[in-house]
């Protein structure tokens, strides 16, 4: 095998490791098949879901603001899915590449992405790689002065408010300890969440 083929095999494996996972592929397929049989039934289901305040893991025919389908359970477990792909079009401002490929996390609503310049967050921060995150909003709140962030370990622990960035623009996100942290962003008239995984410095330094 020549050098290029080695690189290709390695690149494909790395990419495959980052593949998104849908926990209920078969169920979603069945639901989509049923939905396409009748728009009336689909509309009824959507109305029921909205009324319950819960969005099932059903792929929407209409993409959200990020172009991603939104599948949010009422209280899903904290899980930070880092995407390594071309950034959404609305999040590319400032990049010289027309189609920049970066690792990023997406908020539950799809309205906010956090672009991870350090690839992985470390707690405590590593000496040589900062926890630099660029926050990009698709639709900014009307009044950003009311923007506030809290973090909870695994989404349920005690709320942490100190040391958190106001998620606008670039910031250094030094979370209190390793684990999955759910950032809850609130502002006048709105709320969103975004999950961030912080690793120990040793784990963060390991090759992905």
């Amino acid at each position, binding site marked *: 095998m020549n050098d*290029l*083929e080695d*690189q*290709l*095999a*390695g*690149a*494909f*494996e*790395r*990419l*495959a490791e*980052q*593949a*998104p*996972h*849908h926990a209920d*592929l*078969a169920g*979603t*397929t*069945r639901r*989509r*098949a049923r939905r396409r049989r009748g728009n009336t039934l689909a509309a009824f289901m959507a109305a029921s879901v909205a009324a319950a305040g819960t969005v099932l893991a059903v*792929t929407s025919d209409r*993409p959200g603001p990020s*172009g*991603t*389908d939104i599948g949010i359970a009422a209280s899903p477990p904290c899980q930070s899915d880092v*995407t*390594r*792909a*071309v950034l959404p079009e609305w999040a590319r401002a400032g990049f*010289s*590449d*027309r*189609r*920049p*490929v*970066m*690792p990023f996390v997406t908020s539950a609503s799809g309205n906010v992405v956090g672009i991870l*310049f*350090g*690839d992985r967050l470390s707690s405590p921060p590593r000496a040589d*790689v*900062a926890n*630099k995150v660029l926050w990009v909003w698709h639709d900014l709140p009307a009044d950003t002065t009311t923007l506030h962030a809290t973090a909870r370990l695994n989404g349920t622990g005690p709320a942490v408010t100190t040391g958190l960035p106001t998620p606008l623009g670039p910031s250094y996100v030094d979370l209190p300890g390793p684990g999955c942290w759910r950032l809850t962003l609130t502002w006048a008239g709105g709320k969103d969440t975004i999950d961030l995984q912080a690793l120990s410095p040793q784990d963060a330094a390991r090759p992905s």
Partner: protein
Amino acid sequence: MEFEEYVAARGRALERYAFVLTGDRQRSQDLVQIALLKAYRRWRQVARVEHPDAYVRRILTTSYLDWRRRRSSTEQTTGDLPEPSAEASGGGDPADQVVLRDEVLRALATLTPHQRAVLVLRHYEGYDDVAIGAVLGCSEVTVRSHATRGAQRLRAVLDPSSQPEAPR
């Protein structure tokens, strides 16, 4: 084999394959859903064929090629790597490390859809040229042609000084 059994056994592999093909999180999930939806609608027939997985992968791959064909009407691929590598720029910023590691992946984005599909099937799935031809619906000669041109393209993009390439 029931549809649920098939998805439980092969669903994750389909997700990985789709993501390697597209490099796009959302698109890969869409492709998996498209392929499974088509298979689900005629599962009785699909389950009777010798290799249902080959059938589903063929749908997925064809959908990928269709998507790229539609997209190509509005986008042009480029051989230029838009960010300097960490070595070229002197390193320092963590963002450059990400760029360096993803250089091959970004070079893959400059391939034609058929070139990429052939290279993925060959180097990720381990298919031989006959199997690749069956998935893509083309001859072995065509498969080898796509593979050769794809490799040439990658070499030219990754090391422009070694293989100057004529404009596409």
